[in-house]
């Protein structure tokens, strides 16, 4: 959300420019860009010779998705598109939500979060964003450490407390962890310990296994929610799956991915 999409070419603003800008807008709960999730229903770029008028429609998996997240994504989308050079008027509308009218009115008036929700809001959504940035980091470190456990069968859970970033194999999971650490302001050098909380503090030695277990439940939760939300969107809006990018974390055969065959344990 702090990343700024920049246009590579001069000339009139295109739909691709707008979609690139929307690619910086993240669903904090699912830790993915709204463009990958298929939440962007349509983009239109109009206007004459001057600044371009842009209209974006967003859609969500259900009418009852949490309104605070819904507002947050729609508001971030408006900001991201508005920052593009050459863009004039921006209209962002959230479709088919129980709070569509309220949110769309608030966005049109630039009323802000408190101005939009009135008595239901108290201050702002910074704490909500922080909560989910922390969870995203927790999940990212668990993916790295569980992969390490599986790759090195002699390793114990308790030994994970001393793993450093340099010990992790290169790859998608390590890169994802580095990005989540950056978002929290944690160091990303090779000497840094992996198993730390959002302040960079490692658990005491006798709590390492428990810390990992808690992190695991967080990772399962985020991956499970992400795939369920993606699936519900496909059920709700026919054809919307074409607008989704595959999510590798937590993917199963029914998510249109080709994974390990499912073999089960002997009792």
């Amino acid at each position, binding site marked *: 959300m702090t990343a700024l999409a920049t246009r590579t070419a001069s000339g009139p603003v295109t739909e691709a420019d707008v979609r690139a800008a929307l690619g910086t807008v993240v669903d904090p709960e699912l830790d993915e860009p709204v463009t990958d999730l298929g939440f962007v229903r349509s983009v239109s770029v109009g206007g004459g010779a001057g600044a371009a008028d842009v209209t974006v429609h967003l859609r969500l998996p259900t009418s009852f998705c949490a*309104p605070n997240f819904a507002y947050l994504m729609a508001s971030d989308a408006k900001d991201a598109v508005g920052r593009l050079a050459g863009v004039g008027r921006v209209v962002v509308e959230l479709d088919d939500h129980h709070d569509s009218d309220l949110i769309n009115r608030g966005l049109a008036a630039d009323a802000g979060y408190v101005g939009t929700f009135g*008595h239901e809001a108290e201050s702002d959504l910074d704490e909500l964003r922080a909560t989910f940035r922390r969870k995203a980091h927790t999940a990212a470190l668990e993916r790295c450490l569980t992969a390490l456990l*599986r790759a090195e069968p002699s390793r114990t*859970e308790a030994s994970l407390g001393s793993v450093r970033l340099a010990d992790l194999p290169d790859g998608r999971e390590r890169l994802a962890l580095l990005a989540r650490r950056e978002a929290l302001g944690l160091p990303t050098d090779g000497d840094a310990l992996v198993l730390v909380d959002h302040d960079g503090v490692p658990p005491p030695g006798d709590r390492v296994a428990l810390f990992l*277990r808690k992190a695991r*439940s967080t990772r399962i*939760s985020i991956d*499970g*929610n992400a795939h369920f939300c993606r699936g519900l969107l496909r059920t709700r809006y026919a054809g919307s799956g074409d607008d989704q990018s595959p999510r590798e974390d937590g993917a*199963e055969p029914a998510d249109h991915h080709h994974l390990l065959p499912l073999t089960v344990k002997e009792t």
Partner: protein
Amino acid sequence: MYTKDGESYYIVDAHVALWDARPENQRNIHGKQFIDCFYDYHRNLSPEQEVWGYDEYLYQGGERLLKDLFEDGYVDHAIFQPAALTEFYERGFGQTEEAFALTRANPGRLTYNHNWDPRNGEQGLDQLRADHERMGFTGVKLYTAEWHGESRGWKLTDPWAYRYLEACRELGVTNIHVHKGPTIRPLDRDAFDVADIDHVATDFTDLNFVVEHVGLPRLEDYCWIATQEPNVYGGLAVAMPFIHTRPRYFAQIMGELLYWIGEDRIFFSSDYAIWTPRWLVERFVDFQIPEDMSEYAPITTEQKKKILGLNAAKMYGLDVPAELRLPDADETATGPRDPEAADLASV
């Protein structure tokens, strides 16, 4: 009763509803949005041959419920967990009188749980006492995301909620089923937050708190709270059907629950009529943790028997045939259960 491979399972469906979401009962657009959301859950997670038509999904009626649960669904006993949703439906969503009459007509097979809303204040407390006198329930289902005038949600820690919980204690209504949903004021914080369960479970140690859909979408927060409170249980409503489309996710949910709260506190639920119990029972008895998930131990037949019915039967004092009963596991009342059971943890 379900029997397979010489094993018999006493089945309690701990979360069923008799709803009416037909257009003539919808108060506004939200009534349609709500049932459409349920229908998408149903279509998304059900096996193809189990998908209902939209019209039959709007209303089932008592006869169909009895057939789906008891004739086709292997269920020995089912517990009504009604949601009122009076802001969305003219006569409410859950059909109180119809469900209560069905319970009376089918003694031993159905339990009627009631509901309350702390925002109804003193008048609602009087109503709760009167309803209890007439219906004699031992459990309630609380939906914290229920809309009520300008308010779109409440917390268990609200002062009026404490008044109602005190009334429950006094009336012997000991089984408090909590359904967390979005839109809790203030919206600044996570709307699905389950932290309020922690407080009431500590303050009302003589009440049982059954968190429906095991806190999903906040499984992690639920597990962390439930492991610390001996009177917090987990209902598998909504979690069960993942067994079909997303069996690896389901395996992880089960693995986490067995680790954090143990085999004696998990309740099977179909969440009828969102889903039907027959295929869920069949799949669960056949289910096993995928082999590559070395972080979890296999699920045993005894654990499945407890989850499918014995745990809820114990809480509700149901008469389970003696040969089907099982003793409680030798597990701690709080903290992670049997952490050495998984092969990965013990290497």
